[in-house]
């Protein structure tokens, strides 16, 4: 058997109750169930987590480097979208 026949999964761990799941890496497995177990063995050996999510890497739709011009540049000249752009009246200065 080789890893070529396996699927790639992305692993998300929640380190403590109350925190969000964070991406920690990826691994190969045959299916979700096995991915969950391998995630336990690979990423929680030193008590790093209390909850695991596994997601097929194929199921992630990611933005591309090529898109950055149209995705992110347009917001650069719109400072009025930031709260700091506005001069607050003295009455609400501590907002």
């Amino acid at each position, binding site marked *: *058997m080789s*890893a070529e026949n396996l699927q790639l999964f992305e692993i998300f761990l929640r380190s403590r109750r109350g925190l969000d799941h964070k991406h920690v890496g990826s691994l190969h497995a*045959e299916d979700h169930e*096995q991915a969950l*177990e*391998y995630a336990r*063995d*690979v990423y929680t050996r030193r008590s790093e987590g209390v909850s695991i999510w596994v997601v097929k890497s194929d199921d992630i739709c990611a933005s591309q480097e090529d898109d950055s011009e149209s995705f992110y540049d347009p917001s650069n000249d719109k400072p009025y979208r930031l709260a700091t752009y506005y001069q607050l009246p003295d009455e609400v200065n501590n907002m």
Partner: protein
Amino acid sequence: MVSDMNEETKQAVLNYTIRLGDDAVVIGHRIAEWCRNAPFLEEDLALSNVALDFIGRARMFYGYAEELADDGRKEDYFAYMRDHREYQNLLIMELPRGDFAYTMVRQLLVDVFNLYYLEQLISSTDETLAAIAGKAIKETRYHLRRSHEWVLRLGLGTDESKIRAQKAVDDIWGFTHELFDLDELEQQMADAGIGVDNRSLQQDWSAKVKSILEEASLIVPEDSWKVKGGREGYHTEYLGQMLNEMQCVHRANPGLEW
């Protein structure tokens, strides 16, 4: 409490504890032989984790043996200074790792046994053994989850994986009867509420193993042959070879600690 035991009981518990340590260290070493040899990286780490669980378990048993013996023999003595005739592990633990299917089938048979065994040992009147069992059973439930799933994958996988899994079941089956055999010491420990009456586990074990094998579309073998002897120190030829390798560092550097 060790201090409350009379000398005879203490010796009996010591011998019983050493056996449990032997079971754990031997199968732990066999699984550890997969480290860097497993089919792919993730499984390599997973198997090494299981191996470390067993070696950790052996350390707990040998650590307790050290306390019971109270004669200067340390946990390293029990693991590294005894030859195969002094080892009293069950034979199924020492069988060579074979191919991946063989390792996983053996693991399933042992994990189901450990599950029922540890469930009983938790109620031992010996507080230390009960505490070790309480810790170990959590690991065993995970081991069984893995070996159960792997046996299904192999049995229901390709023609090749099914043939290999079935061959493993057939080859190992005769070694499973020893799991439920009680000798004088084990009977004494069971009667005293310290050890487990292994015979009482056989029905549950058979039912569970059969249901998993059938689920994996593997054939449950006939009880045509059985071997035993591990508890008396009569082993297969493989244990001596295994100990040779396992103990070589300690033999080259006696008493070395790190």
